[in-house]
């Protein structure tokens, strides 16, 4: 053979030695970069012996950035009453163990946390679960308000197999969201582990249908950027993120807990009728059949319109369909509309000239609330 197997000239052996050495060096470089897990290096011990992450500052900065952006977007219209379909990809791609212990377990854990967080931040909203498995989209729970019911169902459904089909997912989710009242904001959040979608038809038609029904679709990818997801989210106005690791996945999913900015066209502004029921007496005096499945229990709430008793708030009355909330729920939802004003950083010199509450502060605080009159200052150490 010519060329292809061209022999090395005389200095063959030293050459091979050098090559071997290099191969070892390459292997070491690989291990350094990909295999050695020096997670402890990211921790440090403070003076009390507690372990703290090294980049605490970075974390605080990120938190502050979030707050700032929330404050800056205070004038942005947001949808308070959200109807969110969460689609969980449980195809065989979810079984890959590149996240610890496995993608499946991580997704399960993150979503449970998300469901709680979601209802915590949006007590007036509804959520439903759809599972992608074996090429079909299976509706796990209907749109409803109870976090624990969703979590219980999700826990029971955590096993995976087959292909994922985005088209089926979109169709199922869009179908469920089609019939919600006009003031509700329609959203779909897809946790997508697969890298391809096996569809019975053209997925782009499903995207078009979703867009037509004003459904905002967001995707959180678990492995890599998939073109169709990018197209899907861009067309429907959602966001698309790909998780780098377990923690990042959690962040990305939880970003969807606060309500997204709403376009005027998405939902008509209208008055919504709501009831504010009172809690019934606890104990034997209050014993009655409560809720849709008529459990015998005490406490519960009474619907102010039809006197039916419901288990928990917020929910909609299972008899007359009235939305039942309590005032703290409304307040919690409102804080997205009226976020805490942003803090402006004030230099120490300027601060020295100011007299917070007519007292010169001893400690030097870094943050200062942006209030037009600087008569009062908050956050100062009283010492």
């Amino acid at each position, binding site marked *: *053979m*010519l*060329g*292809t*197997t*061209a022999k090395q000239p005389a200095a063959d052996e030293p050459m091979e030695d050098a*090559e071997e050495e*290099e*191969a070892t*060096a*390459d*292997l070491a*470089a*690989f291990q*350094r*970069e*990909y*295999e050695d897990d020096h997670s402890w290096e990211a921790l440090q011990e403070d003076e009390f012996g507690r372990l703290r992450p090294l980049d605490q500052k970075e974390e605080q900065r990120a938190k502050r950035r979030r707050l700032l952006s929330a404050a800056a977007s205070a004038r942005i219209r947001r949808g308070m009453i959200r109807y969110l379909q969460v689609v969980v990809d449980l195809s065989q*791609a979810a079984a890959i163990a*590149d996240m610890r212990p496995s993608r499946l377990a991580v997704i399960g854990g993150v979503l449970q946390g998300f469901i709680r967080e979601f209802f915590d931040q949006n007590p007036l909203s509804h959520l439903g679960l759809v599972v992608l498995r074996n090429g079909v989209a299976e509706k796990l729970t209907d749109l409803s308000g109870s976090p624990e019911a969703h979590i219980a169902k999700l826990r029971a459904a955590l096993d995976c197999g087959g292909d994922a089909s*985005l088209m089926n997912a979109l169709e199922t989710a869009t179908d469920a969201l089609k019939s919600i009242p006009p003031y509700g904001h329609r959203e779909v959040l897809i946790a997508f582990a697969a*890298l*391809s*979608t*096996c*569809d019975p038809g*053209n*997925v*782009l038609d499903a995207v078009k249908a979703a867009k037509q029904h004003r459904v905002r679709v967001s995707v959180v*990818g678990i*492995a*890599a*950027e*998939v*073109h*169709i*997801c990018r197209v899907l989210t861009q067309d429907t106005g959602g966001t698309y*993120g*790909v*998780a*780098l690791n377990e923690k990042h996945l959690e962040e990305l999913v939880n970003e969807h807990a606060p309500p997204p900015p709403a376009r005027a066209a998405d939902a008509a502004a209208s008055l919504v009728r709501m009831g504010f029921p009172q809690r019934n007496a606890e104990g034997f005096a209050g014993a009655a059949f409560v809720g849709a499945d008529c459990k015998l229990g005490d406490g519960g709430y009474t619907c102010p319109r039809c006197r039916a008793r419901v288990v928990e708030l917020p929910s909609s009355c299972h008899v007359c369909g009235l939305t039942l909330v309590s005032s703290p729920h409304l307040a919690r939802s409102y804080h997205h509309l009226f976020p805490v004003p942003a803090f402006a950083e004030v230099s120490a010199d300027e601060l020295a000239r100011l007299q917070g509450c007519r007292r010169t502060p001893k400690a030097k605080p870094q943050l200062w609330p942006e209030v037009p009159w600087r008569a009062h200052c908050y956050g100062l150490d009283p010492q």
Partner: protein
Amino acid sequence: MKFQLEGLSVYFPYEYIYPEQFRYMLELKRALDAKGHCLLEMPTGTGKTITLLSLITSYQLAHPEVGKLVYCTRTVPEMEKVLVELQELVEYRAKYYTGPGQAPPPILALGLSSRKNLCVHPTVAEEGTRESVDSGCRKLTAAWVREAAQKNPEVETCDFFEGLERAAVDAVLDPGVYTLEDLRQYGRKKGWCPYFLARHMLAFANVLVYNYQYMLDPKVSNMVSRELEKECVVVFDEAHNIDNVCIEALSVTMRKHTLEAAARNVLKLRAAVDKCKQTDANRLTTEYNRLVAGLQERGVLNPLPGGEEFVANPALPEDILRESVPGNIRRAEHFCVFLRRFVEYLKQRMTVQAVEQESPTTFLAQLTERMQIDGKTLRFCYDRLSSLLKTLEITDMDDFTPLHLVADFATLVGTYAKGFAIIIEPYDERMPSVPDPVIELSCLDASLAVKPVFQKFQTVVITSGTLSPIDLYPRILNFHPVAIQSFAMTLTRDCMCPVVLTRGADQMPMSTKFDMRGDEGVIRNYGRMLVELAAAIPDGIVCFFVSYSYMDAIVSRWNDMGILKDLMAAKLVFIETVDVVETTLALDNFRRACDCGRGAVFLSVARGKVAEGIDFDRHYGRCVVMFGVPYQYTLSRILRARLEYLRETFQIKESDYLAFDAVRQAAQCVGRVIRSKADYGMMVFADQRYQRHDKRDKLPGWITSHLRDAHLNLSTDMLLHVAREFMRSMAQPYDRLAIGKSLLTEEQANALGAPAVPALA
């Protein structure tokens, strides 16, 4: 932006400029100042075209003595792209011009292509092939046809051509940039033939864009590029294969059916001569007298202007003897006899049993001995044939292609004693049972065809995304550039991830080396690697194999092993075939599969059509896998003759050349996935041999600079790990806060370009 580059005002139609573009301009400007040739490598996706256009047109503006910019491209779409970019540039320049006078000097730029791409005649333009359009055009525009039409209005002519002729000196294009479509529209509007209008306007244009052939192939360039002035700047873009283009321009291949058709052509010619003798013997006599007088110039042959011109002599201009045609072929009948004998001789030579290889000198010696035909006669064969065809007023030239090939062969053999080899093979080495005799006149020296270009023009720029190792090109093409430079791409993130895969999951080495390629384990390892990669990489994956036969073999083995089934579960599989239509269809469906999220794998061949011309940008190619090192078929006679020649003439070692050629093909293949800075992709070099320095170091700088130690010598499982990490990190939002690091503003460029600042490179 407009900035000063060592005293030259450069108009650049964008707000920012990449640092590498700036350095490229600087290098180019110095070459132009030095009036020398240069060789510049800059990766695709960095805006090479606009950089070139912007600098050279600005240079033309400042130095009116510089001639045209002649921009040579490989394909028509590339040509259109260049013209569109130029359009933008010219608009920008018109807006921001600040020089002497009110407006910038007008610029005329046009693309020139074959009649097939420019014809607007309603019926002729519908013809399928290039040759049929050419001959259709000649039938309507040849001088004698037009003459006949004047006497007899029944004779059909082309209205557009006549329109152009009537307009005569008024037929000019206004300044501007004309793409092929613009030319066609303009031609339709004015009723002028766009092809001949473009040909006519060549002399007045500031920027010309056309195919390599128009510059390199003597058959065409004599016609088109002869009148270009010496001060022109010639640019060869995507020139990594320029040596092959040069060689093809001077090589002739004849098969059995070619010779048989040529023999029939001779008979036809003979009949035509006889007929002509009966009807109009005068014409032949005139021709004879002219030949005697030695007036074989084309201009004298057609007193009437017409569109019938034939392609010109295949030999290079300065090698053509300015003598009269030898006596033994002056008479038409004699020439026919001569041709018949020569074709017979070739036919007889073709009946060999074993491969024969000889130099033109030996071939001529034998020819003289056996047929009493000498080299000088052969040399005139081509001119004599075109003269005869014109005299006989034959327009359907495509019928005479085989005879033209024979004449090409004869002229080249007669003209060149060195740098060529004649190879006669009775069958293809790969299929010894099928008799397929072929005579090849193979040009061995790429510098022959390109030499006149280097000699004639002041500055020749050879540029491409992959020209590595860059110092080999001046040796192969035999010229002395004043500037050789390779530029890296400045990136804001590591959007390229080249990796060298040497081992399978079982740690066994992987290679397409001859003694390993049939190995079961290697085939399985390659297959498993692809299957697992398909599960880790989204959307499109492109694979390149070393040859069609290897691809066929490995794919069928994968099918037997069940690997193909696993692969299809993750992604759809498409395969390139020799058939262009099938491949186009496969590509189309591949793109659809990527668009709709199903994901697909495209299996293709290095050196194939896909590897050379098709981009797999964005999601169409998130990963490219190069299976093996794409060496040429090393047993090929032509390659061996060429290697020998390179060794003897240029002292280039065989293994060096082969490795160079293989690695540049590999680089070309993997470069298909990154077409812009916002793009990202993995490049997997799946062969043990890439680990070795003699291969790896020949890769272009923009690949090796991203080749980290941690990505060398990987096994399949390590590769997957790298792939997952890379895909995740690349999916993160792309931060465009990179101004300053990878972009220069006008002020920064001005500061860098000030003459006070010494060399930057």
